[in-house]
């Protein structure tokens, strides 16, 4: 009872705006603090005996890589909301997430490349992990193009939802590509069956950075959703304006 009430409350755009206005400053603060801690810890982390100081790239590469997949998952849930409940807030959530997800994916690609040069001797290699992430990036761009190309938001939302759900099959492919194909890329060492194999000295900074980046995503996403709601309000008002002038 209580839960459904909160949910319907949240689903009302005006209530959503009011609520997020209150929690956004706290979220932003928490993000900043955690990022500071994470950055300090990763600066203090020892060098790896194999990788040397370049292991520091891990602390930003891995959170970005995780988020690139997580954001698509968030969009998939929103897509279900669009198709099953036809709820406009789900449309808003999906649309606002796409550019942020694209940015994280871009960063995962770039930091990965910059790490690959010292480690593998090349910036880019057409292997399964790398390419499936590139495909993810292309699909983010495709979705953004779709949102821009179609001016009627609810029509765009439904098409984007179908596409998001179909594209979600790429996520397990990215995750398990290192197991299914023998590739250059590291197999999973943090999130795997049988526990993490990573040394504690690297694990802690990594986890803090991962949480910090996740909070960053939540903050940015909520803010972008607010913008999107306002954009729709502007659109509606402009339409009313046109109608009032026509009458």
């Amino acid at each position, binding site marked *: 009872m209580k839960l459904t009430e909160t949910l319907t409350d949240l689903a009302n755009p005006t209530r959503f705006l009011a609520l997020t206005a209150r929690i956004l400053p706290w979220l932003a603060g928490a993000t900043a603090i955690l990022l500071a801690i994470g950055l300090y810890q990763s600066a203090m982390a020892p060098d790896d005996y194999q990788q040397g100081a370049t292991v520091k790239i891990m602390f930003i590469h891995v959170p970005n890589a995780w988020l690139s997949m997580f954001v698509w998952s968030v969009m998939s849930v929103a897509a279900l909301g669009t198709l099953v409940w036809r709820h406009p807030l789900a449309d808003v959530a999906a649309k606002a997430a796409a550019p942020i997800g694209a940015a994280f994916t871009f960063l995962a690609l770039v930091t990965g490349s910059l790490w690959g040069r010292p480690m593998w001797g090349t910036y880019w290699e057409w292997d399964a992990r790398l390419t499936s992430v590139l495909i993810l990036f292309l699909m983010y761009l495709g979705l953004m193009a779709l949102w821009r190309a179609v001016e*009627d*938001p609810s029509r765009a939302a439904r098409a984007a939802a179908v596409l998001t759900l179909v594209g979600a099959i790429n996520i397990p492919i990215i995750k398990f590509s290192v197991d299914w194909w023998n590739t250059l890329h590291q197999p999973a060492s943090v999130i795997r069956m049988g526990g993490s194999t990573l040394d504690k000295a690297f694990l802690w900074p990594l986890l803090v950075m991962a949480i910090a980046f996740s909070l960053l995503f939540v903050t940015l996403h909520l803010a972008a959703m607010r913008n999107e709601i306002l954009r729709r309000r502007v*659109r*509606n008002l402009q*339409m009313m304006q046109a*109608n009032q002038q*026509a009458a």
Partner: protein
Amino acid sequence: MRLSGRNLKCVRGGREVFSDLDLSATSGEALAVTGPNGAGKTSLLRVLAGLLVPAEGSIALEAGDAELSLAEQAHYLGHRDALKPALSVMENLSFWREFLGGETKDAGHCLAAVALDHAAHLPAAYLSAGQRRRLSIARLLSVRRPVWLLDEPTSALDAAGQAMFIGLMRDHLASGGLIIAATHLPLGIDARDLRMGGAA
């Protein structure tokens, strides 16, 4: 059988087309939807046909086939006539007859009923505007559907064609069907009027 819509509202392209619309029609009855250009007649028919989702309101078909949705018990005759120019007249009709399924009538008879039997083997690309419309009407006859949703059905028909179509609508009503037709011209049969307002 009774088709009723309650409190219907339709939004297209972000603009409200109509709202608070109620309608009902029973077996043997025809409803003529009239109103100026852009009033929302076509939109209403498409909502009833299930091709548009109403923003508000509900539609019910009482005493119809409980296993089938309204759309599955309805014929929709729109501006676009669902004909493939590359197929012959007979092939076009036979395809819809088989695909739509249900209780069917002989395709040749239906073509004869709309006076197109002499053209059965012509490609549909060769038909004149009125002949295309006649072929669409033959589709209504070839498969039985109790509800007919017609959008300006007599446009492009000549005088003989209009008389023929009036006869076909009468037969349909007499056999317990119901008709909802958007039109600017008198329908030619007894019909209740549903007047829609709105701008040109």
